[in-house]
């Protein structure tokens, strides 16, 4: 019989993504160090937690040891949507204990905080300025004793403690051994772009998601995007193979592949620019059955250009947008890889999307600050899409404009796809021909079958190469 761990009472952070990273939130009555360089987001994070808890009816004590005045702090927070000036001084109280530290030392600060925590009836204590307390300590033991006393007296009354501190280059951090958790916030530069990471360096009694997690700071405060492959190491739902097929909307193709794409499969359309990949994706969306929802998740065409293109191709989706087909466009500027994934999955779960067209996966690759994780990322994403029963088409653009020797773009990613279709622009006798090769299909051997892609009024079609009315007419002309 398997023994189960006792369920620990949790304090929700109110910071999107953080509870997931922490394995369910902060542990009530536990103590945490939140560290990072100035500007890393420690103060915003802790205030976001404090105001979320205050809105839940808890009482908060926010103790500072800083040169920055509380009014400067409030001014900086006033642009954040979580900040509520009306509860200052009552539900949430900010006090400075700097005079006690300066005049009487760490022991006096401990006593003052104990009394003030009790007076406030606080269930969350934020202590901003641990570095200043360290500067006042004579030995490492003094710091450990200070932290131990603060957290033990807080734990005695069920109060959770967040110690905020700036990191230093020579950081040996003796107090890390005393607390239950250590969260590290960092802001970094990759080439010329800035990005932020959160890492749980220590998590006593709770299984946190390891590694670096991207986050951003906006008007609503901090939003954390747990690393997808860490969060979705396994899909959230057991994968059940659906034996049905999803018609592609490409005339002639479904008859060859057994009625359409296997439901819940992932298909890569890889090929040259202008070879018909996006058109096939639009055909797929256009032919979404009336009782299903679809999503176009793109990086290239805007909403308006996409509608115009579908109309020009004779597959007008404008009547299906937005009720049946939603369009999400993220320009190829500064995207965050995991944010894209959560945006995609949120739309799929909320709208119960069953058909997805991603145009294209190069947008995810460009957003990746750590290219080494792209395979694991796509493994997690495609596994989750399958488990959600989403039939997915994704494009991958090859660099060459035309030619017959198109290599697989990312061999490791290709291996985790169910189906792979290659699109090529071939030049023959001054004539451009678009070819489609079914390189790989789940459970069906279609290796090296090549077709011609044809644009016709009312949609697109495939036919055997050189065996179409259009080809014969061209040959006769030639």
């Amino acid at each position, binding site marked *: 019989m398997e023994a189960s761990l006792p369920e620990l009472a949790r304090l929700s952070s109110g910071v999107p993504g953080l509870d997931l990273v922490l394995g369910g939130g902060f542990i009530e009555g536990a103590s945490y160090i939140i560290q990072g360089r100035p500007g890393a987001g420690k103060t915003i994070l802790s205030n976001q937690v404090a105001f979320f808890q205050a809105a839940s009816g808890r009482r908060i004590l926010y103790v500072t040891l800083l*040169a920055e*005045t509380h009014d400067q702090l*409030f001014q900086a927070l006033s642009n954040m949507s979580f900040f509520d000036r009306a509860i200052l*001084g*009552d539900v949430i109280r900010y*006090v400075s204990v*700097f005079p006690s530290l300066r*005049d009487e030392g760490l022991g006096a600060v401990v006593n*003052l905080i104990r*009394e003030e925590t009790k007076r406030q009836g606080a269930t969350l204590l934020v202590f901003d300025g641990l570095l200043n307390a360290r500067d006042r300590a004579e030995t490492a033991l003094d710091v450990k004793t200070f932290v131990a006393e603060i957290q033990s007296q807080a734990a005695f009354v069920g109060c959770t403690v967040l110690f905020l501190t700036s990191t230093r280059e020579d950081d040996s951090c003796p107090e890390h051994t005393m607390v239950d958790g250590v969260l590290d916030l960092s802001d970094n530069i990759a080439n010329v772009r800035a990005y932020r990471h959160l890492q749980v360096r220590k998590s006593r009694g709770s299984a946190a998601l390891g590694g670096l997690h991207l986050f951003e700071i906006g008007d609503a405060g901090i939003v954390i995007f747990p690393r997808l492959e860490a969060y979705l190491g396994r899909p959230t739902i057991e994968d059940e193979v659906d034996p049905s097929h999803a018609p592609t909307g490409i005339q002639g193709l479904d008859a060859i592949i057994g009625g359409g794409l296997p439901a819940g499969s992932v298909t890569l359309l890889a090929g040259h620019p202008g070879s018909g990949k996006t058109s096939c994706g639009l055909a797929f969306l256009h032919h979404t059955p009336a009782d299903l929802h679809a999503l176009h998740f793109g990086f290239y065409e805007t909403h308006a250009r996409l509608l115009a293109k579908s109309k020009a191709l004779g597959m007008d989706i404008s009547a299906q947008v937005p009720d049946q087909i939603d369009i999400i466009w993220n320009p190829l500027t500064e995207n965050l890889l995991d944010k894209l994934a959560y945006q995609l999955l949120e739309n799929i779960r909320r709208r119960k999307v069953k058909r997805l067209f991603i145009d294209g996966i190069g947008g995810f690759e460009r957003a990746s600050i750590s290219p080494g994780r792209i395979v694991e990322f796509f493994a997690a994403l495609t596994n989750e899409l399958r488990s959600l029963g989403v039939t997915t088409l994704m494009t991958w653009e090859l660099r060459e404009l035309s030619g017959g020797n198109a290599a697989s773009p990312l061999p490791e990613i290709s291996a985790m796809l169910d189906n792979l279709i290659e699109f090529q622009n071939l030049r023959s006798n001054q004539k451009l021909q678009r070819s489609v090769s079914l390189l790989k299909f789940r459970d069906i051997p279609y290796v090296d079958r090549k077709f011609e892609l044809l644009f016709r009024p009312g949609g697109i079609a495939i036919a055997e190469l050189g065996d179409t009315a259009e080809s014969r007419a061209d040959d006769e002309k030639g």
Partner: protein
Amino acid sequence: MALILVADDEVLLSDILAVMLMDDGHEVMTAPHGRAALQMIRERKPALVITDFMMPLMTGLELAQALKADAELADLPVILLTGAQGDIARRHHELFRAVIDKPYKPGELLAFVKTITNG
């Protein structure tokens, strides 16, 4: 010139205010929280108290209530300087001679102090 007590846990602010008042000819003592302020008031009997709202151990509101409850100190004028709790303080207008929202103009505060201390 008068003896003025400034109560504020944020020493940066209390030090600046103390210097400003001393430059204007007043004698100033400072306290880091309401409890210390109350003790100093009982010992030194200042002519005016200028206090912050949020402080450890005893808030500015609690300090004013304690003064009002003490027959010897009930008439001691109190000015509250507040960043965010002006509305709470104004609901207790009987406790404060003035409630001044931060940020304030030093000249206005000094003029107000002059009016009170000249009595």
